[in-house]
């Protein structure tokens, strides 16, 4: 059963994408909804039925297909580089080709299954198909506001759906060879989707994203090369079992490659550029799923790393990015850029936790991956709504948005609150994170500082949206196309419900996924009370905080009676004041210093890879 579901989750999206692309205009919307529902139910079923790891061996001919596809992709990149006259892309494509050729030449067949479905993979499927499906649906509505032809709109949604299959496969691939192909496929989808709008900015951003991700591919190939050099089988499971130094070296290269995919500094630029793409792209690729490859890779190899200098380097790198990303975001003005940098920042936290690799830290990392995915997807979708319906992109244009678009602002606030405030999943993840990272005083400092800066960032933006003109009496209820409101509300309700049920959620969703490879996280629940080894979160606190936050929107709807309405105080003057936001312009040298520190860390990880391999 699981085998069939797995095949459906991996290959199904491609087929469904073809159907969606070919469907007549009238049917295409419902078809997208149907395929999303199908995929999510399959993932849910797989998650429910999953009892132990299931290995699926692919037939021999798939190996040839993988090789063929690999070279086709590299060839395509080469062609792009030549046509756009981009030397770096050409160079990297050639390098990739050469490395791949060498790896394949030395590769010996191993009697291992290419796909291993573990509980972690099954849990991540829930995120990919759940959030991804909703975003595909949302994209149907979003693309209507673009100037594209109907056919091209359908193509866009189809690519998004097909991409879900790639992500599904990626999270369960055991063969590194297969993983590389999927990695390159995500690079391809990033490239195509960032360049979707075909203007100059899109073109530049897409090329930048391409070469940086190609570099990630090169690092992956280097990692593979290390494994091949030792004559070991090219599989994650085999890598995890070998204890020798070269395995760590390979892991360092693999992780470095994945970190680029996660836009960790100094490679943060490509994700920032990616924000020119239509918003659904940012929502699915560049915040909730694809960039999660970085923490996922560290999470997967975390057990191997545990207690090595490499783990220390990666953990500090992650911690540094957590703080630096949040600081850079403070100086940004466009909502999507702010969201992008806070994504980079939080990815840093997840990487850090995955590298700490105690069972508790891994649970915290997975909690963050899941809840950040849901929250960020919702935030990006709302950013899209604000952009399309209210023509507001920068935070400055969003002053007083509350009176024009109360529901969107409310959902944005919910998204922000879910990352910064109790009792939401991401905050509880952060709480677990501090309890887990407390062993190391310095790592903890990063977490403490970073989370405060993130809170500062979000409240700054939220506050500005709320800046409600005093003279306006009530809220105008906005008219939102149903696709937008249904999809975003579903995510919002998920966040709110998972918040009050956070204890069972952690115990039944997160722990089973982490337990198989890192047992002993000691997370338990009693009713709604969450229990960690170092402290409890009693139900009355969860319910109390939840009720306070719930009262907020209710309070917004209920007008006070028998209370006078007055003007704001302005020193007796009667002038209309127009407040603007605070900026915290980060001096250029700090930004540069951050990039350099990031680069040093990154270089250190790669160097460690080399040293460990040779040693």
């Amino acid at each position, binding site marked *: 059963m699981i085998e069939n579901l797995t095949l459906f989750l991996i290959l199904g999206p491609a087929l469904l994408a073809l159907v969606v692309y070919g469907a007549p205009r009238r049917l295409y919307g419902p078809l997208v909804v149907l395929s999303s529902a199908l995929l999510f139910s399959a993932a849910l079923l797989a998650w429910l039925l999953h009892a132990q790891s299931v290995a699926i061996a692919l037939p021999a001919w798939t190996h040839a297909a993988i090789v063929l596809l690999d070279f086709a992709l590299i060839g395509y990149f080469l062609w792009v580089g030549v046509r756009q006259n981009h030397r770096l892309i050409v160079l990297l494509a050639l390098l990739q080709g050469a490395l791949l050729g060498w790896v394949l030449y030395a590769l010996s067949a191993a009697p291992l299954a290419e796909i291993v479905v573990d509980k972690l993979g099954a849990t991540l499927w829930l995120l990919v198909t759940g959030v991804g499906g909703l975003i595909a649906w949302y994209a149907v509505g979003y693309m209507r506001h673009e100037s594209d032809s109907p056919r091209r709109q359908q193509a866009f949604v189809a690519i998004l759906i097909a991409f879900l299959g790639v992500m599904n496969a990626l999270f369960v691939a055991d063969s590194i060879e297969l993983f590389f192909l999927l990695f390159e496929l995500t690079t391809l989808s990033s490239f195509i989707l960032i360049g979707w709008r075909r203007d100059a900015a899109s073109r530049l951003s897409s090329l930048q994203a391409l070469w940086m991700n190609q570099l990630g591919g090169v690092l992956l190939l280097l990692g593979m090369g290390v494994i091949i050099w030792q004559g070991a089988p090219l599989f994650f499971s085999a890598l995890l079992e070998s204890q020798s130094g070269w395995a760590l070296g390979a892991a360092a290269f693999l992780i470095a490659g994945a970190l680029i995919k996660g836009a960790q500094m100094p490679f943060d630029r490509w994700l920032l550029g990616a924000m020119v793409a239509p918003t659904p792209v940012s929502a699915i690729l560049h915040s909730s799923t694809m960039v999660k490859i970085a923490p996922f890779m560290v999470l997967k190899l975390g057990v191997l790393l545990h207690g090595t200098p490499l783990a220390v380097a990666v953990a500090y790198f992650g911690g540094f990015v957590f703080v630096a990303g949040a600081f850079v975001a403070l100086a940004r003005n466009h909502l999507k850029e702010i969201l992008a940098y806070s994504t980079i920042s939080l990815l840093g936290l997840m990487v850090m936790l995955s590298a700490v690799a105690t069972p508790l830290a891994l649970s915290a990392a997975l909690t963050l991956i899941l809840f950040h995915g849901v929250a960020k997807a919702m935030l990006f979708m709302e950013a899209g709504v604000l952009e399309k319906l209210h023509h507001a992109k920068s935070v400055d244009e969003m002053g*007083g948005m*509350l009176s024009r678009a109360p529901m969107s602002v409310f959902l944005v606030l919910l998204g922000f*609150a879910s990352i*910064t*405030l*109790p009792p939401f999943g991401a*905050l509880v993840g952060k*709480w677990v994170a*501090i*309890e887990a990272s*407390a062993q*190391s*005083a*310095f790592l*903890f*400092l990063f977490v*403490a*500082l970073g989370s*405060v800066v993130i*809170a*500062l960032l979000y*409240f*700054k933006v*939220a*506050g*500005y949206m*709320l*800046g*409600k003109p*005093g003279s306006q009496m009530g809220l105008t209820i906005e008219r939102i196309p149903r696709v937008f409101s249904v999809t975003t509300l579903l995510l919002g309700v998920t966040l709110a419900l998972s918040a009050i049920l956070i204890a069972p959620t952690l115990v039944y969703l997160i722990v089973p996924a982490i337990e198989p490879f890192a047992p002993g996280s000691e997370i338990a629940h009693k009713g709604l009370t969450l229990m960690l080894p*170092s*402290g*409890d*979160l*009693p139900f009355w*606190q969860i319910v*109390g*905080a939840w009720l*306070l*936050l719930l*009262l*907020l929107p209710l*309070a*917004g709807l*209920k007008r*006070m009676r*028998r*209370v*006078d*309405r*007055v*003007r*704001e*105080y*302005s020193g007796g003057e009667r002038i*209309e*004041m*127009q*407040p603007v936001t*605070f900026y915290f312009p980060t001096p250029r040298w700090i930004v540069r210093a951050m990039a350099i520190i990031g680069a040093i860390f990154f270089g250190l990880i790669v160097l460690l890879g080399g040293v460990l391999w040779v040693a």
Partner: protein
Amino acid sequence: MGGVVGWLLILLAPLIGGVLYGMERKLKARMQRRAGPPLMQPFYDFFKLIDKRPMVVHSLHGYLGILHFLGMWLALAVLLSGGDLLMVIFMHLLANSFLIVAAFSVRSVYSQLGGMRQLLAILAYEPIFLLAGVGFYFLSGSFEAKAVFELSSAPLWAMWGIVIAIIIVMPAKLKKSPFDMAEAHQEIIGGAEIEYSGLFYEALYTARWLEYLFAYAFIVLFGGANWLLGLALAAVVFLLVTLVDNATTRLNWQQTVAITLGLSLPLGAINLLLIGIQ
């Protein structure tokens, strides 16, 4: 704490906080060689404020003030019931977030400036309080306040650096000079609280009492099982904060953040490191 005593304290928190606030005003006056208001002055203010004609700028703003008060009480309840110290700090952030959102929700430059400065004040003190939480964890093996009260040797001795760091950021938390930029009477006229009046200002006023109790209860933790020592420490800090409030002038936010973080964060970090080594 925990148990019946804890819950009794939680219920009576506004009362105790009010007396604490009254004591502070009295002490401040005595330091300036004034007679100062009666000890019960905060309660007189309390009853007077009920009596005023209610006014709001808009409903949401009024409700947010009340939510701020409730949130503060919740944070205090988590602390006094012996809950997880990190959660205590996060709940405190939750309470403050209501006030900040309220500050931004009115079109008043003073209020918005106050909200922004309040955020910066949080940036200034919150990391130190998180640091203290981790320090307690190192000593007691648990993040819960309950466990801290069972420590036989007072955490004060091991956590000297963190204690000093907390004393440094204390004015920022209580909105006292020199770090009272968030409130800044006569400059931005109370900042976030400027648009509140009557009953709604009352919510903020009492929330401030709770904030006092919250901050000093946190200090009492440093006494461990020897809660008398904790109380004595709290009294010393109380005196010190009031003295500094009287003796200094306001700094701007750059100075505030630079001093609090630049001084107390390294201090706390070194202290934490030393505890970690032992």
